[in-house]
């Protein structure tokens, strides 16, 4: 029996570890470091209806044990993604489940992308990005207003051929009301957390360093916030959670699972260590032994009965 296997709506995962959206592109370059078939799944970069060129540079800044990014959803658009990016993965890694991250400025954009992207044979689930803090329109608006989140989720769910996971923002007063709204609208699961809005000032110019002024904070700095929010959502909903936020190693992955996540996405760690995902996968069994965890399904069941 495979101790690491985890089953989620649409996703039969041989292990719970997957790169987080935007931190791994569509995997092509990382495939030059290791065999992507080692991954549980892959969450690919945000897809929007039209191609996007993103925000002005600089787009990243380093913070203490974290980083800020304001990429602004640069991506080649749904057409190129359907004809080039997803087929590339399909051809080389036909068994690798893909989770497609979908973003947009208006409901119609989101719906159009959801309708199409689920038809790709390797796309097993959609991650609805209602929490991007780095774009002027769409993104965070949908993620901070329960009604907007409800409507968008409902509209996207209606056209999606695959299970729909909604990616929640940490930049809210009460994540529980958003989670409940999204669940009521028919979502199949949650992913969280997206980044927290931060800013860095360049002391030499006395101006914000990032071209977009603000950016999203990620990395170990935010892990305790991710643990709290995952746990809060876990308390109010039975839907499965793909947890993320500051996971650097196997112990971090287990901590997010004990908070209520059923699988784990790894973002910023890829930049420190391009082989972060396979390294974490390799280290999981020993870490599970250390904490007397027989297998992940039993850990998930245990946490479901008695949420941390």
């Amino acid at each position, binding site marked *: 029996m495979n101790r690491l296997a985890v089953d989620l709506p649409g996703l039969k995962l041989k292990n719970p570890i997957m790169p987080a959206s935007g931190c791994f592109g569509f995997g092509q370059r990382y495939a030059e470091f290791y065999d992507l078939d080692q991954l549980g799944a892959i969450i690919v970069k945000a897809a929007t209806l039209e191609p996007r060129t*993103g925000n002005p540079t600089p787009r990243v800044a380093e913070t203490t044990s974290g980083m800020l990014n304001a990429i602004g959803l640069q991506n080649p658009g749904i057409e190129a993604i359907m004809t080039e990016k997803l087929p590339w993965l399909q051809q080389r890694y036909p068994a690798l489940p893909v989770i497609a991250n979908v973003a947009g400025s208006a409901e119609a954009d989101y719906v159009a992308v959801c309708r199409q992207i689920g038809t790709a044979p390797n796309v097993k689930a959609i991650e609805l990005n209602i929490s991007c803090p780095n774009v002027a329109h769409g993104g965070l608006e949908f993620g901070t207003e329960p009604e907007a989140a409800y409507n968008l989720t409902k509209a996207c769910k209606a056209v999606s051929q695959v299970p729909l996971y909604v990616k929640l923002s940490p930049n809210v007063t009460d994540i529980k009301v958003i989670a409940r709204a999204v669940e009521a609208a028919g979502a199949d699961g949650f992913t969280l957390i997206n980044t927290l809005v931060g800013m860095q000032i360049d002391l030499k110019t006395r101006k914000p360093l990032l071209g977009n002024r603000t950016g999203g904070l990620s990395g170990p700095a935010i892990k305790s916030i991710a643990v709290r929010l995952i746990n809060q959502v876990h308390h109010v909903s039975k839907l499965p959670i793909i947890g993320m936020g500051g996971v650097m190693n196997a112990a971090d992955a287990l901590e997010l699972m004990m908070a209520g996540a059923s699988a784990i996405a790894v973002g910023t760690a890829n930049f420190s260590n391009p082989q972060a995902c396979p390294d974490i996968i390799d280290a999981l069994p020993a870490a599970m032994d250390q904490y007397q965890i027989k297998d992940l399904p039993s850990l998930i069941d245990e946490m479901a009965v008695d949420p941390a």
Partner: protein
Amino acid sequence: MKRGDFSMLQEKMVVVQQRQLTADVFELTLQGKMATVKATAGQFVDVKIPDPNLLLRRPFGITQVDPQTKQLRLVYRVVGQGTAELSQVTPGTHLDTIGPLGHGFPTDFLQAGQRALIIGGGTGIPPLYALSQQLVAQGIEVTHAIGFGKQEQIFYEQEFRALGDVHYATDDGSYGFHGHIGLLLDAADFAKTDFAAVYACGPRGLLMAVNNRYRGHPHAYISLESRMACGVGECYACVVPAQGQQKMYKVCDDGPVFATGEVEV
């Protein structure tokens, strides 16, 4: 686990030497397999600073490689926390390094006996030293125009002189031509020569000057810097707008070397 034979390397390279060249410039010699794989001058490596607080790697142009001794050399200036900490690293330390990354300077089109001009400034110089060596090995006659703030900042003078003509410009006139490198090119006879190739790396002002001056040149190249996250072409952090197009190039992957006129510097 299938690991191993992949085209991009991640390796704990061993520090074999750390040498201070000027008040704030250091030369770091690393040893490992990475020094034995084919790299083009202008490519770079991305180094993990051994400090858990600093999550992002630091990109540095490759200055020199010796496959025999498996040594790879970087030259860097201390500008912030990462490079300050790097300068404290002692021989024997292992540095987690990925590379070689990006696309270097094209030189294949050149024929032995042709002439090339290398234009560099400050810490843009390290990859140009690798380039000059490569060109000289190809039988190219290389002229160097190199700018610094002032004389005491100059490093690698003997190294460059051993490879060809070197013209220095200093902002304060303390060595060579008085003024920035654009003015040197305007004033100097050698710049009127018809070079088969022109290569530049250095501060933004220098790159803008070269980008304008050699826009029509069929083989003029500039190497850019940009803040990076992944360093390998998957995060869209390091982009630069294509000149006159609704399109972005990735400095880490499409670059760092671009033809003049190709991107908005």
